């Protein structure tokens, strides 16, 4: 459980600063620091085991489906990284207390900071590789927040976005790699993975895994060519840089290589990719660092260079090189963190980071200068400092490999060249800032920082010295444990002695020193030379590329999604064709075995009329009313066809619906243009005709194939049970109100929704009302023709009687609530047409909305009623009664259900048509504002 505490403590630490925000700054910092310090102490209590090479682990099941456990695994390597994370973290917290100005939100800063720390702890301490990735991505996200801490600054935002993009991309590659690892190994448990090196290297996925994992590591560790985000991340407050870019974030990539070293290394591919990348990065960073005028810029490139150095060491792929790499991790963390802090102090106290302004600070801040100079010297690899030791090991290792065959000498030479530039930029850091004349136009007069701001630097520089002087005492055990954990085995012999005698590495160090001083001395020539290759601001370049990509996306997106419905429909049809054509061509025989109906002259004639009217509708589609008339003919023939093929109910419904639709279309057409402009190009017409004909052809063919094949259906059941089980002889109606009454409930709900939806549409709609028809003819003055009014009034009671008749017979013969409802609706609409809205309003006091509501309620409650008989929803009931004189008659719950249907239909039809009609009158519907009470 203690192990989890290591993870939980920083997590708890996220909340602390938010709670302590209102406390004093010092208290806030102090409280925040409790978590890492406690964790560090906790860690140190375990140090004995860890230094002895014991692996401590503990895990809880979390999301087994994903193979992710909550698992902590500590060994020497993790121990080393955790010390850096907690130790330097605590120091940075202290440092930031003084660095941040009172305007900056301290709570927010520490909160992000602790978030990052937790993520970092998670990465290194994970015992499960998915969990490791989880925290890996968290480092990207929390570093995004830290880099963009001064969010109002453009460079901070852009730098943060760039870091997120690059490291995010690497993170995704890493995920892919780790998932493949899990796939090959069969487990995401780190322990298992680490023991499966051979299986991994031999698997076919190895190249992919290697490349993907390394992509993750390289992007995080700012390896060339993914290095460019790191200098831009300097927009962050300096404590962030000191933490992220010395000891933690960039080291996560290194950690990854160290962690997976035993399973991924040992191949040609590993050597080539890792060492070459490292070498390039090492040289490139070292060279570039010299030309940065910004103090943090110099440190950033130097960081890149040192990370390259470590990578190169991993790439050299000898066990000893790995030890050197890990050693340099420690050393780099200490001197680079202190250098960043020093740079921050200089910036803080002088107001500038530009080395062209900063000169001769020795006079103003000798103490800080001393610390900075020691750290910089360590960076340069000056003896008696820790940097010297690891660099010496590095030179030694470059000499010790032969993978490039006869060209193997290239590596030590280039390594020495890198060393030259390292010395040069370190010298510049020392000379150009603390000496080299007087300051130029500094915003502030520099002075020493507050006492405790120096403390973290002192501690770190002290470490540099201690390690440099007595390495065997201070660091040997730790290095040994970490190396053996990384190597997953015994550590080869190496000596941490300061003096190994005059040997080649020492010579290389000497060359580097001398060369460095020489280069620095002749820097002006070199600066001049470098001026010819103006380095583009990677931020600008990156931003430009992203902008370009976005522009391209916008263009592409607008090209595909051009807002044209016609295109979308076209694509829909194309998709339909695409999926249907193949099976259709696979259909061996279009016509099936079922005997077909004979053709008769009347039907053929009707079919011809149907075809003609349909085509006429299309041809005259631009003359809208004419198209409407043609459409009516189509509808009429369709209903006759229903009648012909034994579906009287359908014929009735189709007729009624068609008339209501035509009325509706006319109501709408009044407000729409009477003609459609001619706007389709011939090409478009051909295309449209083509695709419609194809779809029509497919549908027709399928229909023919279907109709001519025999079929057995479930319908016999309905015929058999209609009378006995449903109490009606009209099977279609019994299906509607009983067997599939639930469909009907849904159907009338749809109708009800349509009605209220349409009401919602027309409420408050303001429309242009034409004063005459399309030819400019004024409307007739006879608003309500007398004869029509009189006859309509006479017909109303008859129509209602007919609708009652249709309603009541529906269960046994064609008819039913729906058709009856439509007849009633049409009869009422006829009154509106003939007599006018005002006339009707004075005489009819029906709230159609309530009518819909009660219709639906009746239908639903009829269904609920069956619960009281312990039957499922909508179970019907019927019985026959015999009264004297009246005779035998039937009562059925289906009738009540049908009444609900009837009311809904009438209500819906009227709510739609009557309200639509009133749009042009003083009775127009208006938004009823419902207020809270």
């Amino acid at each position: 459980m203690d192990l989890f505490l290591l993870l939980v403590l920083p997590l708890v630490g996220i909340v602390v600063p938010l709670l302590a925000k209102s406390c004093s700054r010092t208290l806030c910092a102090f409280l925040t620091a409790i978590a890492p310090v406690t964790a560090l102490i906790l860690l140190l209590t375990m140090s004995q085991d860890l230094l002895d090479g014991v692996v401590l682990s503990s895990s809880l099941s979390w999301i087994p489906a994903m193979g992710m456990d909550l698992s902590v695994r500590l060994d020497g390597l993790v121990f080393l990284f955790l010390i850096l994370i907690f130790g330097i973290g605590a120091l940075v917290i202290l440092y930031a207390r003084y660095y941040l100005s009172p305007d900056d939100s301290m709570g927010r800063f520490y909160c992000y900071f602790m978030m990052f720390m937790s993520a970092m702890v998670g990465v290194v301490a994970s015992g499960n590789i998915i969990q490791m990735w989880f925290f890996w991505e968290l480092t990207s996200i929390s570093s995004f927040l830290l880099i963009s801490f001064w969010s109002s600054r453009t460079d901070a935002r852009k730098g943060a976005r760039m870091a997120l993009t690059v490291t995010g991309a690497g993170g995704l590659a890493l995920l892919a790699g780790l998932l493949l690892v899990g796939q090959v190994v069969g487990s995401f448990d780190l322990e298992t993975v680490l023991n499966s090196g051979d299986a991994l290297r031999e698997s076919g996925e190895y190249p992919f895994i290697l490349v993907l994992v390394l992509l993750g590591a390289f992007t995080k560790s700012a390896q060339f060519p993914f290095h460019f985000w790191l200098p831009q991340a300097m927009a962050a407050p300096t404590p962030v840089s000191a933490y992220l870019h010395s000891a933690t974030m960039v080291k996560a990539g290194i950690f990854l290589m160290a962690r997976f070293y035993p399973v991924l290394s040992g191949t040609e591919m590993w050597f080539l990719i890792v060492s070459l990348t490292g070498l390039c990065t090492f040289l490139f960073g070292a060279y570039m660092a010299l030309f940065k005028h910004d103090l943090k810029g110099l440190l950033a490139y130097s960081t890149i260079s040192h990370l390259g150095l470590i990578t190169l060491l991993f790439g050299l792929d000898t066990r000893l090189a790995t030890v050197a790499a890990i050693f340099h991790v420690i050393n780099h963390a200490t001197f680079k963190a202190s250098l960043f802090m020093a740079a921050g102090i200089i910036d803080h106290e002088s107001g500038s980071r530009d080395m062209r302004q900063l000169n001769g600070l020795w006079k103003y801040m000798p103490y800080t200068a001393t610390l900075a100079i020691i750290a910089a010297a360590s960076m340069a690899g000056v003896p008696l400092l820790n940097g010297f030791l690891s660099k010496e090991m590095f030179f030694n290792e470059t000499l010790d490999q032969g993978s490039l065959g006869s060209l193997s000498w290239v590596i030590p030479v280039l390594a020495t060249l890198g060393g030259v530039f390292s010395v040069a930029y370190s010298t510049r850091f020392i000379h150009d800032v603390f000496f080299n004349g007087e300051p130029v136009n500094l915003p502030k007069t520099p002075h020493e920082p507050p006492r405790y701001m120096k403390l973290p630097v002192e501690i770190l520089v002290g470490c540099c010295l201690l390690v440099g002087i007595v390495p065997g005492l201070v660091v040997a055990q730790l290095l040994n444990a970490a190396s053996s954990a990384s190597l997953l085995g015994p550590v080869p012999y190496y000596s941490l002695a300061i003096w190994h005698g005059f040997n080649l590495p020492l010579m290389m160090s000497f060359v580097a020193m001398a060369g460095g001083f020489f280069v620095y001395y002749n820097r002006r020539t070199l600066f001049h030379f470098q001026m010819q290759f103006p380095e583009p601001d990677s931020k600008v370049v990156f931003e430009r590329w992203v902008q370009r990509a976005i522009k391209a996306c916008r263009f592409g997106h607008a090209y595909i999604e051009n807002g044209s419905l016609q295109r979308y429909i076209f694509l829909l049809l194309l998709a339909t064709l695409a999926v249907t054509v193949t099976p259709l061509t696979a259909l061996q025989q279009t016509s099936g075995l079922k005997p077909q109906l004979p053709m008769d002259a009347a039907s053929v004639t009707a079919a011809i009329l149907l075809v003609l009217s349909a085509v006429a509708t299309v041809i005259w589609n631009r003359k809208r009313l004419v198209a409407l008339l043609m459409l009516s003919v189509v509808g009429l023939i369709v209903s006759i066809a229903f009648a012909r093929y034994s579906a009287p109910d359908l014929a009735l419904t189709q007729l009624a619906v068609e008339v209501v639709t035509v009325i509706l279309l006319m109501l709408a057409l009044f407000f729409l243009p009477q003609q459609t402009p001619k706007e389709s190009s011939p090409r478009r017409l051909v295309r449209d005709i083509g695709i419609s004909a194809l779809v029509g052809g497919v549908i027709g063919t399928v229909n023919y194939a279907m109709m001519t094949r025999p079929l057995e259906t479930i319908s016999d059941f309905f015929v058999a049970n209609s009378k006995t089980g449903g109490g009606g002889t009209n099977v279609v109606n019994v299906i509607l109100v009983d067997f599939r009454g639930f469909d009907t409930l849904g159907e009338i709900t749809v109708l009800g929704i349509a009605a209220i939806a349409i009401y919602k549409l027309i409420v408050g709609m303001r429309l242009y009302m034409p004063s005459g028809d399309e030819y400019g003819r004024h409307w007739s003055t006879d608003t309500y023709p007398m004869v029509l009014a009189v006859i309509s009034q006479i017909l109303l009671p008859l129509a209602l009687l007919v609708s009652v008749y249709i309603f009541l017979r529906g269960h046994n013969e064609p008819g039913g609530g729906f058709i009856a409802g439509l007849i009633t609706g049409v009869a009422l609409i006829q009154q509106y047409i003939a007599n006018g809205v005002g006339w009707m309003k004075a005489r009819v006091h029906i709230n159609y909305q309530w009518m819909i509501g009660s219709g639906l309620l009746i239908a639903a409650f009829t269904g609920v009623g069956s619960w009281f008989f312990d039957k499922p929803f909508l179970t019907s009931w019927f019985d026959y009664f015999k009264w004297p004189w009246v005779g035998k008659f039937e009562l059925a719950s289906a009738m009540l259900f049908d009444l609900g249907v009837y009311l809904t239909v009438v209500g819906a039809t009227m709510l739609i048509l009557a309200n639509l009609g009133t749009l042009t009158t003083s009775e127009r519907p208006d938004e009823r504002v419902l207020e809270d009470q």
Partner: protein
Amino acid sequence: MPFWVELIGSILILLGGFFVLMGSIGLVKMPDFYMRLHTPTKATTLGMGAILIASMILVSVNQNGLSAHELLISIFLFITAPVTAMMMAKTGLHYHLKIHKGTLNRDLADIAKQRQPPNH
């Protein structure tokens, strides 16, 4: 079914079909809208009447009971046909449709359209 019933039925049906057809022929043949308006509304009333009576007779005999509901359709058509005709005539007047050149009192069409009394 007795022969005479079948005979009467057949005659009525043929008559009905004939009148329906005549009406539609008139619809095609007549030179102007107003003249066309006469033919279908009339011929169909009679044609429909004949068919409906035939239906009444045949169904009644077939089912051994009076089948009179066809009457309803007749009644309905008799009530509505004149109204639709008049509405269409109104529409024709409103549209100033071309009037056949031999028509007498052509000027009345305009006056009728404006629903004014004739000026004589």
